[in-house]
């Protein structure tokens, strides 16, 4: 009776770990449909300290696709890539640039 099993249950008031008090700058990876079955992948919210041009160059070579950097008034610089590169981009961001997976949001179908 020294260890009562009932009392060792899940504590609903414990810290759940996901503290969302500070605003996190998410990296959004979106997809857009173009004509036919062609698609366009956009990556927004990459932090300023990264050199987008260099990233784009590597991405283009890695994924064998074209792409460019668009400037937007609201979200700043945006990487655009041809085709559906969402998962690949996310893996690249996590592995090569060491970004946190929870800060990356993939949108689209």
């Amino acid at each position: 009776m020294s260890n009562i099993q009932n009392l060792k249950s899940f504590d609903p008031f414990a810290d759940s770990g996901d503290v969302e008090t500070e605003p996190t700058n998410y990296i959004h990876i979106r997809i857009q449909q173009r004509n036919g079955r062609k698609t366009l992948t956009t990556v927004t919210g990459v932090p300023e300290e990264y050199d987008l041009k260099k990233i784009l160059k590597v991405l283009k070579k890695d994924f064998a696709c074209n792409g460019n950097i668009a400037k937007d008034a609201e979200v700043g610089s945006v990487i655009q890539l041809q085709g559906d590169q969402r998962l690949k981009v996310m893996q690249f961001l996590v592995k090569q640039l060491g970004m946190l997976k929870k800060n990356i949001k993939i949108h689209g179908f």
Partner: protein
Amino acid sequence: MSTEELGFDPTLKKKKKKKVVSKENGTASPGSGTISSKESLDDLFAGAKKKKKTKYSKETNGNDAVDDLTEGFEGLKLKKKRKKKIVSKADESADFEKELAAAGVQEEDSGEIYDEKQKETFIPYISLLDRFYEVLREKNPEMAGGQHQKLRIPPPEVARDGNKKTVFVNVQVIAHVLQRNPEHLIQYLFAELGTSGSIDGEKRLIIKGRFQAKNLESVLRRYIQEYVICQTCKSMNTELKRESTNRLHFIVCKACGSTKSVSSIKTGYQAQIGANRRKRG
């Protein structure tokens, strides 16, 4: 001290069962039953003394233990009376009592072994738990089988409207099942898919672009994850409320009563495509 008290409760229960057994054997001869109970009581007494000696050498504690014992004795008598009443009350309870008695016989043996080992548990926790769930399932099944009676969300029915449009037939049904405003769901779908669309006369949703059912399903899943499921208790029985003072949306859980704010739907960056792009230069 607390452990000892805890130890006494199971013995009480065990006693109760013994009483039941004796009754089953013959209500005509109550004398034998009482004798057996007395014997077992003596056993108990001895056990308690042993415990006392091994655990506590102080006399004050010993007195406390004796008090407990007397209390237990009184409780025993009370229990006995109650038992008789219950048996006379209903057939169902009598049947249950028989079952209990059958279980009690087995537990007596094990209980005595425990006595020797001076362990306080006499009824296995598992059997108590099983009984609890049995009763719970009988009385209010929605509490017991929470996982089984999940909300069933119908899979999205998708049809093609011409070459470039997709018709999402059962948006209204899905929104109703999720207890969400269809407008909100549609807004989310458009934002996630990066397109636009309209609602036709039969309240079906027409989305620009080609989408398959599995695509929409994954988007729906994300919508549920973000705007329906309660983060605290994982229940889908929630409501989306809009606070007019601070213009924030809140998920209010109907199961556990928790509230959580959710971010509003943002469309995000939309790249210019096709002829538009060239015009902009």
